[in-house]
């Protein structure tokens, strides 16, 4: 019973965190068809931005739940500084090129951002452990959970639902959906596609920095924290289907529960299980669980 509960709880917690990291990746791909390899570096920048603000002499005085607002502000500032700049100055130049070129551009960008992190924050770890204790502990049988873990689950639900509702229930969402279906027709219908791309990419960057900012209290922040996050995010979005928010949610849960099961029952296979599940899904549905078969323009 203990094991079953541990697998369920740990799987949900880890899956929620993974979804928070992966949702920006799948959104940017869905709208812009860009597999943004720099998403991991942007996640790391969000963590640094939050730590910098929370540890600053001005915001350092703030206590209690208000610290969460400071962390959110860190994510927003980082996204507003980087998102529009990267989309307008860099990515825009490559929209007419093949998707693989954009993938290579974002890979190069991830290396540049990692070096930028080192230039700004150095190579040594940064910490912001205070908020981790904000929600207390929960003791369940022999297990201890930190309340902050459940806050992350709640945050993932809010972010996921919010993004889904904006895309499916608002005028802005309808405009974005139209660009997703066909940017040329959208342009002909008077939609400012460039502005949609700018907004979608900046929001994708914000989702990355948000995930980094709220992961920061749980970890030691180093320049390479994004590497592992981006690899797992790829597994999540591939399982769920590239570009699908519902798919990312299901993919994150599948990865989270698989990993928790392996750690409890077959620890040596922790990593193997994640990619075995991914391979299995791709064998049955190559486009992912919620992905749609794409027609190729020749």
């Amino acid at each position, binding site marked *: 019973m*203990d*094991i079953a509960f*541990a697998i369920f*709880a*740990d*799987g949900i*917690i*880890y899956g929620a*965190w993974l979804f928070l990291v992966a949702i920006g990746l799948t959104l940017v791909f869905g709208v812009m068809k860009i597999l943004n390899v720099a998403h991991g570096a942007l996640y790391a920048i969000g963590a640094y931005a939050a730590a910098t603000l929370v540890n600053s002499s001005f915001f350092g005085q703030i206590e209690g739940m208000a610290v969460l607002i400071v962390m959110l502000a860190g994510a927003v500032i980082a996204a507003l500084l980087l998102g529009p700049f990267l989309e307008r100055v860099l990515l825009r130049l490559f929209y007419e090129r093949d998707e693989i070129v954009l993938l290579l551009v974002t890979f190069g960008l991830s290396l540049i951002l*990692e*070096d930028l992190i*080192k230039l700004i924050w150095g*190579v*040594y*770890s940064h*910490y912001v*452990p205070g908020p*981790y*204790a904000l929600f207390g*502990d929960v003791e369940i049988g*022999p*297990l*201890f*959970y*930190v309340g902050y*873990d459940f806050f992350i689950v709640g945050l993932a639900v809010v972010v996921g639902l919010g993004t889904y509702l904006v895309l499916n229930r608002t005028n802005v969402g309808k405009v974005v959906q139209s660009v997703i279906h066909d940017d040329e027709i959208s342009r002909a219908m008077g939609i400012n596609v460039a502005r949609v791309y700018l907004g979608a990419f900046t929001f994708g960057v914000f989702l990355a920095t948000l995930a980094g900012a709220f992961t920061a209290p*749980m*970890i*030691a922040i*180093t*320049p*390479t*924290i994004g*590497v*592992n*996050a981006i690899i797992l995010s790829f597994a999540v979005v591939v399982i769920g289907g590239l570009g699908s928010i519902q798919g990312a949610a299901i993919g994150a849960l599948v990865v989270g529960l698989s*990993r*928790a099961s392996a*750690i*409890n029952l077959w*620890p*040596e296979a*922790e*990593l193997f299980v994640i990619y075995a599940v991914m391979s299995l899904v791709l064998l049955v549905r190559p486009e992912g669980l919620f992905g749609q078969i794409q027609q190729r323009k020749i």
Partner: protein
Amino acid sequence: MLRKITGQVRVGLRAVSLATIACVCAAPIANAEETFKLGLVNFLSGPAADAFGVPSMNGGELMVEALNAGEVPEPYAGMIGFGGMPIEIIKVDETGGAQVQIQRFRDLVQREEVDAIVGYDGSGDCLAVAPIADELKKVVVFSGCGTPRIFEENSYEYVFRAGSHSTMDNVALAHYVARKLPDAKTVAGFNQNYSWGQDSWRDFSLALKELRPDIETVGELFPETGAGQYGAQINVLMRLKPDVVHSSLWGGDLEAFLLQAGPRKLFDRTNVVFTMAEHVLPRLGDKVPEGLMTGGRGAVGALHPDTPLANWFYSAYEDKYDIPAVQGPFRFVQTILGLKTAVEIAMQENGGKKPTSEEIAAAFKFASFDTPSGPVEMAIGDGHQAIQGNAIGISKWNAQENRVELVDVEYFSAKCINPPNGVMSEEWIKEGFPGAECDN
């Protein structure tokens, strides 16, 4: 800081120091126009950069500057650089994997024409570069690389390691645990899923089994390197309730584990013992849980012996970089001092000329030298692998000095925790440490 050093270690230290002084004073000085071109390799980017690479390189640069200025205290006082030759350094990033390192090694030797190379922390990099060093006939002295396989499974002419390997680190920790936790009945392992983690757990669990056959292994966890999220693993450890948890985690993974395991009360329920957590103590400060047992892969950092050389290096590093020196800089510096000793012995034997790689390699075998982490002897691996003492202590926050101390420190002599020359580490442990000379 509470430091305790055994009489035997002190006597040994003095003997080696005197021997080294004699060697240095007698060494003739090379042509003043000659320099010694030295390649320094370590992680300047990637996950190991903050834990080891950058601090190591900082320590190396500090030592080279001090050697070139003749400012290093006894037993190295008065001799500029290597045998009077100023040292010229070329820094190289170790990131990129084994194939990249092989190419960079060739570049250093063939294009940059370095006289020798020191560094490398990754076990895979060391295993890849070693045969290339022999092929190009260029001396390389490894500063890290935990794997004992380099000299146990192979034989090289130009390859040396002037620091410990994982066996020494984990055997010392097993001795400490066996003594300090007499009531322990169960143990579990929590180590990264690659050679360092697996070798460390193997050596620790085998050694503990020899020392305390009554302790039963109840779990083995091998998280991926760089995972960062350990909630599920911590819950498994909470559920298994072992009396002892062994871990050889390092860097960001170790820091994340400490930050996540503390609030989950893991340290209240079990004794978590670390092979090398010493290097994160200064940075984590008051976030380090009280009562962690840890070493630093040698008498390094806050565990350094009370000698003029060690005290000078520890202070000089903190003055220059505003953070205490930890194991990375200590290991890197002892590698440079080992090479210095070999170069000067070779010069003593060749009449004071700049020595060839062959002469340096011959002089390095079975050499002894003094370091900030105590005496080091190239005693095993047919003279290519160093042995040195190790120290283990327990973490305690000192609010007055605003730093983490290691208290209840015990020092283990090199010959207590290392196999004799020619004996495989794993067999030595399984046979009950034959030939070990333990005085405490």
